[in-house]
């Protein structure tokens, strides 16, 4: 067949085509954006043999129903994902072959908020500064809507495990990845000293996730540490994961779509892994913060990236072995 494979969209709400983010954006005044749960997104791409920077779907809060025009290889990840093909449930966090015309439904359980769906080869979507990641502030991005097919780069014949006669592979993902922690690890921020002993409230209090959560930030209700110094703060670059204490009774946690500068002091910063966890929080959930160090956070992050490397290698090997048979 010479026609381009597409993914027909039968139903979609809160779903976008994205990638790991616009890495060169911040230097040009734009937020990095991209998949909020970076681990889940990287895992989905790795499981289908894609490059980490390939495009994939981010499914937030509601499910999607899709129908490929050709045979494809996909993987669904994210803590809450519940994939089903023609009504039959399939496991998440593993490659899954879908035949042309079959219906793929990805439900979202109430264990989390965001699921990721990667297709071998990735999606064709417009890019800005090398990334297709949506930026809500500038109105860029490719939302997934019912009735508008998504162009795919490649089809893929069914991937069959020679030992099981079905798409069943175990690439070494620990079972724990499907659980969403509600204790978020943070590192003291560059302005932590301005809060003196007030900073302790951050570690002794519980916070409730408010309904005001999106790609830009999460607002958390609970005790807000007060600065012991006064005066306006000069606008500075703020990192993704920064916890700010604006006036009022809510903490603001900046996510990947945040404005790159702000005039509020930074109390603490979520570790990269905690940012992924925060991406899965739902309104009403109760969370708390745990203090960690740069060294511990770096070690945890590197361990996770090496795990992803191993998954990517095993998946690529399985896919290559199939294509040479």
């Amino acid at each position, binding site marked *: 067949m010479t026609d381009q494979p597409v993914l027909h969209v039968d139903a979609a709400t809160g779903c976008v085509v994205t990638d790991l983010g616009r*890495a*060169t954006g*911040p*230097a*040009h*005044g*734009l*937020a*990095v954006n991209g998949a909020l749960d970076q681990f889940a997104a990287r895992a989905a791409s790795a499981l289908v043999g894609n490059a980490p920077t390939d495009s994939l779907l981010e499914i937030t809060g509601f499910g999607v129903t899709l129908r490929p025009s050709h045979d494809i290889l996909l993987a669904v990840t994210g803590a809450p994902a519940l994939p089903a093909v023609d009504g039959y449930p399939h496991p998440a966090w593993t490659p899954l072959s879908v035949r042309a015309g079959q219906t793929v439904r990805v439900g979202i359980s109430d264990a989390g908020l965001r699921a990721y769906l990667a297709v071998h080869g990735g999606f064709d979507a*417009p*890019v*800005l*500064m*090398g990334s297709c990641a949506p*930026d809500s*502030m*500038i*109105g*860029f991005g490719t939302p997934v809507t019912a009735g508008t097919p998504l162009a795919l780069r490649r089809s893929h014949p069914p991937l069959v495990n020679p030992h099981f006669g079905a798409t069943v592979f175990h690439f070494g993902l620990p079972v724990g990845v499907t659980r969403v922690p509600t204790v978020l690890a943070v*590192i003291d*921020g*560059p302005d932590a000293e301005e809060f003196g002993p007030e900073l302790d409230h951050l570690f002794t209090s519980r916070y409730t996730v408010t309904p005001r959560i999106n790609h830009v930030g999460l607002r958390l209700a609970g005790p807000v540490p007060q600065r012991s110094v006064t005066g*306006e703060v*000069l*606008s*500075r*670059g*703020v*990192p*993704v*994961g*920064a916890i700010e204490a604006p006036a009022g009774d809510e903490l603001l946690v900046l996510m990947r779509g*945040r*404005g*790159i*500068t*702000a005039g509020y002091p*930074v109390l603490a*910063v*979520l*570790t*990269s892994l905690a940012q992924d966890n925060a991406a899965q929080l739902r309104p009403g959930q109760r969370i708390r913060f745990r203090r960690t160090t*740069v060294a511990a*956070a*770096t070690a945890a*992050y*590197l361990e996770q*990236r090496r795990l992803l490397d191993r998954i990517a290698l095993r998946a690529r090997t399985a896919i290559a072995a199939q294509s040479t048979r």
Partner: protein
Amino acid sequence: MPAPVKIDILPCGEAALRVTVYDGDTERVWATVHRLAARIRHELPSTVSAVPTYDAVLVEFDPYHTTADLITFLIQSWDHDWDDAAPEPGQVIDVPVLFGGAAGPDLDRVAGVVGEPVSRVVEIVCAREHLIRCLGGPAASAMTDGPDFRVPVPRLPEPRLRVPAGAVSVAGRQAVIGPVAAPSGWRQIGRTPLTILRTDTGESGADDVVPYRPGDRVRFRPIDAATYTDLLGLPMEYLTND
């Protein structure tokens, strides 16, 4: 030869550093910050990004590819390196602005705060070029030195949930031009009809979504409502005959 500036580097999580420059001379601080950012972009791998502002650079990196210690070591090794030559003069951006009314709902209040008639406030705003100090959030806003008011302008007690694209606002001793509609706690004194942001750079690989960079200067020019309508939607660009 002035003493070297003081550089302080603090972690911002495990994947970012804040590099703050201290010196009595704020111009020198700003020039150093922007030279540092340029050097980081040129000499460190592309996975390292730099966001320069007034007195600090946010350096973001992937700990899988490099380490905070290595970046810190490199930056510390640079600080005595560069000469104090003035940064290259930027270009001038012409920004026609409709002041007051719905286009500048806070103009009267700003006039009250600075103790000048409204017409004089507009004169002060348009009297000199405003240096773009940095690109800020949201969406590559042009953050400039503010007008020569006698006193700083306090922010709004409650931020507005939506300020339109093209808003020209002041706060403290700064001014900002916003390329997109966004929430803001600054005082909106006017609005430019020009289209600032372009996202159709697509596959051409162009990396600039706005027509200005830090170091450029903005010249505000008062226009009336009829001219505003005439200019609406034209692209913002550099002055060519200046």
